[in-house]
């Protein structure tokens, strides 16, 4: 926060021309040219900074692809603790209080400690990272996250040489969340230490230049853009460095369907659907899915020599 020059307009605020043209045009293409002018103009009202603006700096890791509409990003969510329907999180997540909030970092580290969320916001300069997000269900978005590299946090606690994995545990409060054991709560996720330290891996605290809405995993969540969305755990309360591969929620629920790595891979089908294509939210036709969600250049070396059809 200290180093950046405050900018009036975050990159995410500028509606790219391609997006302007793409919005809702799929309606017309499908033969329903009815959503005329009024509908087209609706939703183009700009994304004015509210009081909660974070003024992040731009990042070279950002894609220039058209952003997914903010309304879709914040109303179409998988956050099973608040219900398994995509519309449930936006309806119920307001029950969760995100202050006070601490994140405990423990396990195989030299300096274990608890971070207050407001200290985490000042830990490193906040960057805007416009990433593709690919859900295992076959849809995708382009989201302007605001956050900082997870590596910056891990550096603070000094991982020991014996640490090989990083486990993430997320908030679970049965008073306000689903009690049916759809998954084993609290939701747990994990990364290999080198994946966690990769510069693309961030802890996000905002999107579209503003504080993260609850349904998107407030106040702090993981974003690992080359893996299926469920790897990016929401509303994190504990980060634990371990020697052994941690148990992860979806792998535990159905290990033949969801592997520990869960890298986006068009060649390895989910047993119940193909992963070769995806539907970008807001678009009509499906598009081919890219290996590592298009981040192969940066991350492929992490998996050299591994059989990715076995380590899916």
């Amino acid at each position: 926060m200290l180093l950046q020059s405050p900018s009036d307009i975050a990159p995410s605020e500028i509606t790219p021309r391609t997006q302007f043209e793409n919005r809702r045009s799929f309606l017309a293409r499908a033969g329903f040219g009815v959503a005329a002018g009024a509908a087209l103009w609706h939703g183009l009202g700009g994304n004015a900074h509210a009081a909660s603006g974070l003024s992040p700096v731009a990042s070279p890791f950002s894609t220039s692809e058209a952003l997914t509409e903010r309304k879709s990003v914040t109303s179409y969510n998988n956050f099973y603790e608040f219900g398994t329907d995509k519309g449930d999180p936006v309806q119920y997540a307001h029950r969760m209080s995100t202050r006070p909030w601490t994140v405990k970092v423990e396990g195989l580290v030299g300096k274990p400690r608890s971070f207050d969320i407001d200290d985490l916001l000042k830990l490193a300069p906040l960057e805007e990272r416009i990433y593709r997000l690919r859900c295992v269900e076959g849809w995708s978005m382009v989201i302007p996250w605001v956050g900082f590299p997870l590596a910056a946090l891990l550096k603070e606690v000094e991982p020991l040489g014996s640490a090989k994995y990083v486990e993430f545990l997320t908030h679970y409060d049965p008073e306000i969340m689903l009690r049916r054991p759809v998954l084993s709560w609290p939701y747990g996720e994990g990364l290999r230490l080198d994946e966690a330290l990769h510069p693309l891996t961030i802890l996000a605290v905002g999107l579209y230049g503003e504080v993260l809405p609850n349904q998107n995993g407030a106040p702090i969540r993981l974003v690992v853009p080359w893996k299926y969305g469920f790897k990016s755990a929401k509303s994190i309360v504990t980060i634990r460095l371990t020697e052994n591969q941690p148990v992860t929620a979806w792998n535990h629920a159905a290990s033949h369907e969801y592997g520990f790595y869960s890298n986006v891979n068009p060649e390895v089908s989910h047993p119940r659907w193909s992963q070769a294509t995806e539907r970008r939210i807001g678009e009509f036709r499906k598009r081919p899915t890219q290996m590592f969600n298009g981040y192969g250049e940066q991350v492929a070396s992490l998996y050299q020599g591994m059989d990715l059809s076995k380590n899916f």
Partner: protein
Amino acid sequence: MPNFLRAPTGAQITLVKIIVFALCLLPAANLALGWQHDALGANPIETITRASGEWTLRFLLITLTVTPLRRYTGLHWLLRLRRMLGLFAFAYAFGHLLTYIWLDQFFDWMAIALDILDRPFITVGFSAFVLLIPLAATSNSFAIRRLGGRRWQALHRSSYAIAVLGVVHFWWLVKADVFDPFIYALILAVLLGLRAWWRELERRRQLSTPPPAKHLKQPVIRIVPK
């Protein structure tokens, strides 16, 4: 019970049919309007796929409810709504399939063929649709006369299997939360359980009835309840 409910006139039944027909169209109209006004959420194609699939299941279950309802209320004219309800189940199933082929896969026949062969939930769903076709094709008086009541009835009992396949299709597609498919499975289990129970009652009744005297030379007609 008012008389028109117990024994409605032809005109009254026609009126009821028109009202039911309009009600059955509502979910489809709702989706069409939502599509036009971009009110189907962030992923409209998924919304339509899900809604048309669930309405197919609901119409299958409603159709299978007609006979028990008629039996327990004595409102025999309800049977006259069954053909329409069954055809709506077919119409929504067709809409569901069309959504998948057109909006979802956009006529990518290779991907569709692979889906049907490789993904068990799609194999099952597609089979259910194929099995519905002969039922829709024979849901007219001409076909009943042509086939004969007994054969027609035997053919249309495949609706039980179709409903089971439909629920399995739903169950296998959800990722973790089987609550919704479980509700459909429960209702279907009651509807099919009733029929098994009636069959058992009928078997017991026939066993306890003394066989007719030989000199009458009448065959024993076993009426198996549907």
